């Protein structure tokens, strides 16, 4: 076992790895070849993480994986998302954190934490892939509305951070009012109304971003009233699980209701899949391609591999497995993450098939899910 790097060595290595990861996003934005093989960077990240994180080094030993010998990304041991709830999953000490994203709470009071030393890599990747599937046809900045709280109100939500990044980088500042239409947990319909009215007057398409549960609350607040007729070319990104924050609505029904509410085609309702423990996101391609809803595209810097829940080995093509997610943007945390979501590879990406239940409670023994608050991995 090589000795742990010094602080300066660690930071230098981390910075170099961040640069290599960002080069993937830059190449993607430029329509160029990826700068290096996925496996090469994934294995280098695993070696770095094993040298700087005792937890990951232990996991490698438990899985009988020698990081020095790794040549394939798929062989990198995946860190279960529960680990983020129980301990620090990071290659650096807390004082170097630039930002800490947190998951929803659990019964045991533990919120999963994903600390980042350099959030620029997250932002670059999120923006590159988000633009591709939400805004690649927009020649100029457009009004962005977030049906959610602002980063000031919820600074530790990765989803809010991502929406704010999109609003900043893709959006045109509001003439009046605000981008974020949820304040203290209440949707401000007047702000929404006003922003839509301005967009209509200016004949500008609008990009609406929000969580599934916020949209359900919005739909319930609107009821049978007149819809918010968005200008032509508008689109809606919806994401996230419900986590008990609203009634749960089947994806197809929510999509139909949102399309009706905003007077847009259902194909303009685009689902995003992400989680706090990752730095990359996945999108439906329906806005620009004839891909069906429910199939998510991966960026060239992330892969979703269905694995057998008992062996954690990849399942055969077309079979359902747990999502083992290889994320090259997770430079300082875990390049491989084991989610609790069930997925299946299909042409053009993967299908998200809902959460894999933990062992169901039988009789009187309490289920771990009841304690760990595993209500799906979609980000908070």
């Amino acid at each position, binding site marked *: 076992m090589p000795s742990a790097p010094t602080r300066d060595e660690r930071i230098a290595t981390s910075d170099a790895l961040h640069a290599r990861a960002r080069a993937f996003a830059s190449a993607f934005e430029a329509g160029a070849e990826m700068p290096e093989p996925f496996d090469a960077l994934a294995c280098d990240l695993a070696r770095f993480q094993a040298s700087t994180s005792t937890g990951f080094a*232990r996991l490698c030993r438990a899985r009988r994986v020698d990081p020095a010998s790794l040549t394939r990304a798929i062989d990198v041991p995946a860190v279960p998302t*529960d680990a983020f709830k*129980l*301990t620090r999953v990071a290659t650096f000490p807390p004082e170097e954190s630039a930002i800490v994203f947190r998951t929803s709470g659990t*019964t045991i009071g*533990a919120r999963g934490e994903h600390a980042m030393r350099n959030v620029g890599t997250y932002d670059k990747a999120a923006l590159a892939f988000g633009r591709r599937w939400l805004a690649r046809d927009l020649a100029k900045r457009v009004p962005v509305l977030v049906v959610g709280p602002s980063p000031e109100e919820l600074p530790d939500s990765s989803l809010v951070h991502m929406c704010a990044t999109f609003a900043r980088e893709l959006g045109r500042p509001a003439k009046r009012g605000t981008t974020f239409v949820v304040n203290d947990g209440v949707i401000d319909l007047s702000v929404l109304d006003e922003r839509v009215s301005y967009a209509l007057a200016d004949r500008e398409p609008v990009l609406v971003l929000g969580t599934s549960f916020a949209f359900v609350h919005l739909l319930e607040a609107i009821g049978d009233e007149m819809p918010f007729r968005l200008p032509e070319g508008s689109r809606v990104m919806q994401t996230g699980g419900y986590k008990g924050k609203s009634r749960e609505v089947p994806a197809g029904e929510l999509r139909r209701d949102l399309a009706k509410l905003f007077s847009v085609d259902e194909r303009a309702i685009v689902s995003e899949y992400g989680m706090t423990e990752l730095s990359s996101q996945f999108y439906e391609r329906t806005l620009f391609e004839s891909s069906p809803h429910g199939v998510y595209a991966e960026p060239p810097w992330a892969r979703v591999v269905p694995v057998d829940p008992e062996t954690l080995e990849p399942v055969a093509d077309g079979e359902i497995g747990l999502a083992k997610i290889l994320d090259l943007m997770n430079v300082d945390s875990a390049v491989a993450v*084991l989610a609790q979501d069930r997925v299946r590879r299909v042409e053009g990406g993967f299908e998200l098939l809902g959460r894999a239940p933990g062992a169901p409670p039988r*009789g009187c023994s309490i289920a*771990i899910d009841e304690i760990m608050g595993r209500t799906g991995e979609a980000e908070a």
Partner: protein
Amino acid sequence: MSGEVRRILAAARNVVEGAERSGLVGALVDATGLSPEGVRRALARHLELDATEEEIASLVRAAGEAPEVTVILSANVFVGALRAIALARAAAPRVVVRPSRREAVFAPALASAMRALGDEGIRIEADVRIEDVARGEIHVYGRDATIADVRAHAREGVRVRGHGTGMGVAWVSRSADLEAAAEALADDVVAFDQQGCLSPRLVLVEGDIARAELFGSAVHEALAAAERLVPRGLVPAEVRAESERWINTMAYVGAVCTGETHAVAVTEGTAVAPSPTHRHVWISAASDVLAARALVAPLARAVVAFGTDRPEAAGEIAPAWARVSRLGAMQRPRLDGPVDNRAS
């Protein structure tokens, strides 16, 4: 009603005595997934057949009175039917029991043995419609969702007593002999393959991580030895998946050692949660009683049983409603009332 309870105990003794020749052991192996040795041990050690008069009187007081009781049983700890039926019969002259669909063996055997002793007050019914229960009480055992569902469908005037899911927590004090404590804990874990609400799923060891690791090694050895005497039964696919996930999580979070049929993890300074069932043990170091209490606090509502080498000091950590016992006796609660003392 003490007489009825004593008759139930006599019936249970008859069931146990004839368990091999009646085919009950085999039927329970098939129904529960426990190994034959696991079933035999449960019958021999974990049926509360020797209740004292004082305990029976306490159970009768706890039972109250009702014209009729309908009992909805859950699976898992099949011997639990004895207490459930005793409580119901102590409360009412007429009892209807709906056994679990997965384990419809022990309760019918017990009811049959009671009829043989002249008690006709208990009827087994596989299909009980909650809406059809016209009076008295419904005693429902199982998940919170099941209890809520029964409450939602119960008629007005019918009282529903819910007995929800739970877990056991063990505390190994600074003065404990670690090897003895580990052997006793292994007994508690092995019973019913850890599927009961009294089964220890979390152990707090007073002291530093080194002591917790020493205890972890001792538990690892004790569980390996226990496997030779009482092999683990069938493990459902979902539990095998849960196990794999847990072992990987714990490898990252702390230290984990796995045997052929068990796994032991040791952590320090993290939040804690129950381990999977089927012989998985989560051990956490706790520097002192205060630290232990802080670890247990978020889980307190789920804690039904509390085992320790120092029962006299359990009140410093255990929730007030938890059944306190010595390590090794967590799965042998006195027959003095409901096993779950949380308010229903």
